[in-house]
Each structure stands twice: as structure tokens, then as C-alpha cells.
């Protein structure tokens, strides 16, 4: 192995460089405005992608950074979606407050669940997260007087954003709203992962056994990130409700939990933008192949998963980053 950078002048500078906004990031956000001008017909898809990407970023915080394997995050997405729908049905269709309340509600449930989550590892952890998700699904299914059951929640009405931007048929307002939320979510997540708290999360992922030996209350950290992530997932669910005016049971489904993990792994875990890139690829591909029988779509997804796990464990973005480094 060659020795790189023999002397290190300034650790401050090195750490600062790691958290700086890169050219790619800025380019990405500029490009995210393109659907407004170039691909208007795809605006509804674009807002679906932005919403799902926010959801995937929330999963990345717990799974990619803290290393907590969860197969049940749709629980928070669905709780956010139903809360937003019910608030609106109760006569309050103001989107921003609805979004915040829905997120906080999902966060509250996440906080309560986190007391159980931090007690278990390995298979039991996967099963508990899955169990929570299935539990919530069945609960929503059986409480059809509240949730509409398998018919879903109909007749949700959302008022104009800030009282000005009415949700239009073409989806300009919806995309703008979802994109703004994704942007805020990413800025916040960036802040988190580049803080001392974010460093602790990576420590937990890398070696949870060492954490108590350096005096870390790592369970407290896990509870905190799980709650934050639940809020974010809840907000994503609320966005879906507000931009589509319906809530269906599949917001809570295991399928959604599994899909989001697939997208995350596809893009690359523990790098925030991996979640976004994975979501874009997954959802655009699904849209393009929508004529296909869903069973066959899952054939390709399954094959892709196997290939990614065996050949590119760092995901698409991770592999690209590695290539770029090698060429330097």
C-alpha cells in the first residue's frame, strides 16, 4: 500500500472538507428543478420520487448511519399519512401545520417504540420492527370506521400552500412542495450526520461494543435518531396524503418497508444521496416497466438485489465514488 499524505497539517481542515457541499450536490439540486420546465408530464412521478426519497433518507439515518436494520419503517410513513388525512377530514386542510402535526405524531410513536428497539439485536430486532409494522397495518385494517379499511381514506382536502399555491392538476405545486420538503429534510440530515451526534451514530454502526467502553450512552443516541427518523418518515407519509388527497392501507404495508430498503441499498447506505439516487432509479424503472406484470418486475428487483449485495456492497453511489477515487 502506498503512503498517502505523509504529514497532516490541520485536522480541522480535513474534517471541514468532509462536510463541505460538493459540486455534485449543488448540481443535483439545480437538476431537481428541471421537471418544472422540461418534463412537465412527469411532474406527478417527480413528486412521488421526492416523497419516497425523503422516506428513504429517513431510513438511511437509522439503517445506513446507526446500523439498525429495520424492516418496519412503513409504520411511521403510514402513521404520518393517516394523521395528515384525518386532520384534513376533521376540517383543517392547512398543509404545513398538518405536515408538522403528522410528523410529530409519528415521532411520538417512534419515541415510544424506541424503548423496545434499543433492547434487541440481530434477528429479534428485524422481527420486532417487522412486527410493529404488521401490527399497525392490521390495526388500521380493523379500525375501518377511522381509516376506511381496505377502501382507504377518501375525501381528503388540502388547502393551498401558504394560502397561495393551490394544488393543481398538473402537479406543479405538489412537486414544488415535495421538493422543498426533501431539500429541508436533506439539509437537516446533513446537519445531523456532520455533527458530533452523527459521528456517534457511525461509531455505533462500526462497533457497538466499544461505545459503552468510551462512556457512551449509545442507547440514548439510538432512541434519539430513531425518533428523528420517525418524524421524517411521518412527514413523507403526510406529503403523500396531501399531494394525492387519499390514504390507502398500503402506506403501512411490509412491501413499502421492503421497497424502501431496496432503494436505499441500491443507491448505497450511509451517504444520504445514495437514498435519493436509489429511489430515482427504482421508481423511474418501475414507471417505465409499468406494463410488466408486477411479479416479473420483482424478478428483476430480486436479481438486482442479489447482484448488488454480492458485487457492489456499497451501492451504486458508493461504487461510483470508489471508481472516482481510484482514478485520482
Amino acid at each position, binding site marked *: 500500500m502506498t503512503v498517502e499524505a*505523509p504529514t497532516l497539517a490541520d485536522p480541522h481542515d480535513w474534517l471541514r472538507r468532509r*462536510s463541505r457541499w460538493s459540486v455534485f450536490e449543488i448540481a443535483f439540486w439545480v437538476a431537481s428543478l428541471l421537471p418544472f420546465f422540461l418534463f412537465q408530464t412527469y411532474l406527478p412521478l417527480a413528486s412521488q420520487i421526492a416523497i419516497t426519497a425523503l422516506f428513504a433518507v429517513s431510513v438511511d439515518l437509522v439503517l445506513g448511519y446507526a446500523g439498525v436494520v429495520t424492516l418496519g419503517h412503513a409504520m411511521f410513513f403510514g402513521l404520518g399519512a393517516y394523521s395528515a388525512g384525518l386532520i384534513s377530514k376533521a376540517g383543517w386542510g392547512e398543509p404545513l401545520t398538518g405536515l408538522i402535526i403528522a410528523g410529530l405524531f409519528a415521532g411520538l410513536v417512534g419515541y415510544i417504540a424506541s424503548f423496545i428497539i434499543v433492547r434487541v439485536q440481530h434477528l429479534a430486532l428485524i422481527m420486532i420492527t417487522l412486527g410493529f409494522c404488521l401490527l399497525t397495518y392490521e390495526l388500521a385494517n380493523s379500525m375501518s370506521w377511522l381509516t376506511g379499511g381496505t377502501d382507504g381514506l377518501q375525501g381528503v382536502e388540502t388547502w393551498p400552500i401558504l394560502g397561495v399555491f393551490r394544488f393543481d392538476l398538473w402537479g406543479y405545486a405538489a412537486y414544488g412542495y415535495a421538493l422543498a420538503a426533501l431539500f429541508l429534510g436533506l439539509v437537516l440530515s446533513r446537519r445531523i450526520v456532520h455533527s458530533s451526534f452523527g459521528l456517534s451514530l457511525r461509531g455505533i454502526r462500526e462497533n457497538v461494543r466499544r461505545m459503552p467502553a468510551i462512556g457512551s450512552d449509545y442507547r440514548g443516541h439510538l432512541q434519539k435518531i430513531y425518533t428523528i427518523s420517525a418524524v421524517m418518515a411521518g412527514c413523507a407519509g403526510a406529503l403523500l396524503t396531501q399531494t394525492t388527497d387519499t390514504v390507502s392501507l398500503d402506506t403501512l404495508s411490509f412491501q413499502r418497508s421492503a421497497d424502501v430498503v431496496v432503494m436505499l441499498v441500491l443507491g448505497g447506505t450511509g451517504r444520504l444521496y445514495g437514498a435519493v439516487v436509489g429511489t430515482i432509479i427504482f421508481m423511474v424503472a418501475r414507471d417505465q416497466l409499468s406494463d410488466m406484470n408486477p411479479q416479473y418486475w420483482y424478478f428483476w428487483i430480486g436479481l438486482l438485489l442479489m447482484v448488488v449485495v454480492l458485487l457492489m456492497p456499497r451501492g451504486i453511489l458508493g461504487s461510483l465514488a470508489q471508481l472516482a477515487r481510484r482514478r485520482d
Partner: protein
Amino acid sequence: METQQPALRTEALCKSFGSLKVTRDVTFELPRGARYALIGPNGAGKTTLINLITGEMRPDSGRILLDGREVTQAPTMARVRQGLTRTFQINTLFPDLTPIEAVLLAICERDRAAGQFWRSLTSHRVAIDESFEILTRLRLAEVATRPTRTLPYGQQRLLEMALALATKPKVLLLDEPAAGVPKDESAALFSVIAALPGDIAVLFIEHDMDIVFSFASRIIVLVSGGVLLEAEPAVVRGDPRVREVYLGKVGHV
């Protein structure tokens, strides 16, 4: 005047796995600034004793006092925060973090700043300087920004120590700090230990008797879970029982 409490004291610690007694009635004191060695043949229960003291295992009976305060039931994390830190015989590091990040993490945890998710890591300037200072002291400054998993084994052993030092321990338990390190490097490693601030009490497990006799001011000999002898190096060296159960068999010295 209050009498000076020992930095660490154990009273009649016992631990069994099933019918196997791995720790029997271990009582000893580690005064402030001590440089004690813990020796004993393989399977004597040295690592178990450290696990009991740090709280990774619970004793079946007995007490552990840190600075005169009982910590027998306290979780590991709380003991570390009160100044009781260990290193691991088998590297227990953060493979994907760089040394500067790992040490900074330990310092932020110590300063209770690790939960601050709104504040940028780079704004912890004093902590970053301190991390770099620790790494410099352990001659890791040059590799401070390389991922831990790419470091040679000897440097990983040093980082193991750096993580412990970052918690500002009053009592430091070193579980074979030089395990697997070639002899010439291990001397350098122990010179780092010798240069630790005088008020830190150190208890180290080590198999190399040359090192034990040159660095320890007192030696605790552990045999099948119990303390056989606790004495100055010269006494231990001359003790026939120690020769028989430990030195004689293994053939050191």
C-alpha cells in the same frame, strides 16, 4: 482530614459460569498513580476480572469501589464517566472511522457533547485539538485521517490506547496492550504507558515477564480465579509457588 481513598478497590469478587468458578474472592486495591501488573497462566481469569471491574459482566457477589464510591451495579458507561476505562485484548475499534474521528468521538462522549445533532462537528475546535494532541503523543498523527481498518496492526494497538486516554481516565485497565506486537514495538508501547500522567492508576495484563518486571511497581498473581500473591516484583520473582504454577511451567525468566 479525610483519608485518601484508593483509586480502585475490589472486595471479595466472585463469579461462576455454571459450576466453573472463574473469579474467587478477589480483593485488591489500586492506589492513585499505581503501575500494577496482573499476571497468571492462561485461563486464570484475568480478562474476566477486568470484565467484572468494568461492568461488562456482573459479579455474583462482592463489591467494586471507585474512589471510595460503590459502582458494583453501575453500567459500564457510568463507570467510564467516573474515570474507569479499559482497553481490549482483541482490537475493538471502529474500522471505518479514521483515528481523528474515533478519538474525537470519545472526547465528545466524555464532554457530553455527543448528543448535539444541531452543532457541526468542526465547531468542536478544542476537542479536535485535543484529539490531535493525543494522536500525536501516540505517534499516530501521520495516519490520523486514514480509515482504521487500513492501519497496520501495531498502530491499531496504539489507537486502542488512544481511545482509552481520550476518556481522561483516573483508572486505566490495559488488557494485554502489546498482544501480538513484536517485541521491539511493544517496548515502545510500554514507554508510552510509562509516560502517562502520574495520577492515573494503571493495571495491566502482560505475559512478557521482562516488561512486567521493568514497568510494574507491584504484581498481582492470579491463579484459577483467585489471587495467589500480591507483592513487589522482587518478591514475586523469588516466590516458589509463583515459579511453580506460572513461571516454571511457561518457562519465562
